């Protein structure tokens, strides 16, 4: 299955990410976000950061999860390469996500060509249809 695809958007960037399970679609949305800034396939798995976020609904959970990518880039110069052990749970009306980000610290041989300033709710969709999850996100660049 295709992990994600980038869609046309005038000012910024829009993508759709796919997965057989919600968790897989979330992980692919993270790779799609990274792909707007660097080639995640190039980022060696040398460092890891645990990620733990919660949200009042799936949309806020996704927003906060994806925001970890520019946050770690700005604060740790971390380039995401892969996502491991992603789990989503719901209890007491709150969604919780745990995952581990693997990747590498920025060095000169990497090219960072874009800057995702923020994740947005604009045109955000999280849908399940025929055993396939589709996530759509627009990010501010």
């Amino acid at each position: 299955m295709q992990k994600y695809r980038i869609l046309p958007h005038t000012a910024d960037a829009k993508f759709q990410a796919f997965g057989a399970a919600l968790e897989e679609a979330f992980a692919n949305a993270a790779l799609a976000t990274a792909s707007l800034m660097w080639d995640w396939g190039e980022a060696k798995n040398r460092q890891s950061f645990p990620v733990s976020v919660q949200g009042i609904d799936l949309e806020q959970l996704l927003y906060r999860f994806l925001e970890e990518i520019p946050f770690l880039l700005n604060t740790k110069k971390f380039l995401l390469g892969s996502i491991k052990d992603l789990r989503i749970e719901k209890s007491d009306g709150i969604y919780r996500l745990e995952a581990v980000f693997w990747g590498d610290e920025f060095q000169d041989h990497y090219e960072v060509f874009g800057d995702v300033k923020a994740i947005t709710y604009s045109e955000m969709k999280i849908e399940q249809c025929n055993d396939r999850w589709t996530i759509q996100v627009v990010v501010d660049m």
Partner: protein
Amino acid sequence: MELKRINDNTWEIPKHGEMKVPALIYASRKLLDAIRGDLTLEQAKNVACLPGIQRMSYVMPDAHQGYGFPIGGVAAFDLEEGIISPGGVGYDINCGVRLLRTDYMEKDVTARRKELLAEIFKEVPAGVGKGGVTKLSQSVLKEILVKGAGWAVENGYGTSNDLQMTEEQGRMKDADGTYVSHRALERGIPQLGTLGAGNHFLEIQKVDRIYDDDVAKVFGIDAEGQILVMIHCGSRGLGHQVASDYIQSMENAFGIKGLPDRELIHAPIKSSQGQQYYRSMSAAVNYAFANRQMIAHWVRDVFKKVLGSSQGMRQVYDVCHNVAKIEKHTVEGREKDLCIHRKGATRSFGPGRIEIPEAYRAVGQPVIIPGSMGTASYILLGTPEAEALSFSSTAHGAGRLMSRHEAIRRFRGEQIRDDLAKKGIELQSTSWKGIAEEAPAAYKDVDEVVRVSHEVGIGRLVARVVPVGVMKG
């Protein structure tokens, strides 16, 4: 959407449905065609439905679709019944433009422009992976959030005259760093004094054409061929995080039911959420002022090193184009304080306003409109008419026409560099792909945008400038 033509450059969405006021669009037919191609008008209509909105929901000539509010949207809210919205300011709080004049003419820099640009590229950190040169403690950062550009001047970056020539004198006085999250502070620490990436740039420019000699002289722009420096950047990750934090905390506090667009979340200005956002946003504004202050200082250092002197490199002005402010305006014949949201719009105060530098008070403020990379930029003059037409606001730039993805598919950074070189424009960047994303053809025609601003009377033409050297993040 149904539009009523008022004149060649003015269009109205009449009040209907939930709208509390009409929406007014300043655009030529050509610009309107581009505006109609996305959700700009729908968003302007949504803004017109917000509580406490005054007069009109305005749309500037360079408008395009944004998040919640359109980019190029201007809206004013009553302080008692009105709201404040992070989506009305944008993620890049105090994205803005600083302009320095010089005593140099084109002939003085032509032979040295490669060297000048290379040195600036060394001194001013840019690009996504690069951190700032100063390692800040959290306590110093908090001081910067309160003092703004004043902190930079106290620490040897530039002069107090620069502060006089900055909107708000480089400091929003309501800023309070205690409401800025730990995450936002963490993002701000490594990025102070950096240009960033995306559409941000630093250009060495020459004056191409002067439309109004007298006003240009007041601004320190004396002749065609004169060299200027333009710096376009904002509050970096700190500002992005402040916006994001308050969008989420307002969601949690007020819920999202009934919102036509989740990015339109807002809080009553008087509420604690509203006040905390206003004070945090002001802190991010101050960070951006300090950021541009430091970058301007390094540029002067480079001019001194390469050309022998930075004397005469006075600051013309520094404007914000993503901000919410409390300003006095007249509504229905009565002057009152309002919360003006300018998202991708520049303040354009005319003569007499107390907020503008004394040196400009007889003529009006300089309005700085950056074009896209490698194309013309403009200096306009704030007008007295703008008060009634747009709460003293005009355009902020060219506005995108083509998606980044499409631009990368169509253009190559190296080709753009070669094309610009043929026009005598040097280019330095951290990423060729980043250059392709910002290809001049991906933007609207800035000449058309400022023509409309001039004709409508919300910002009058003073000078056109073109780049001789461009640095991109």
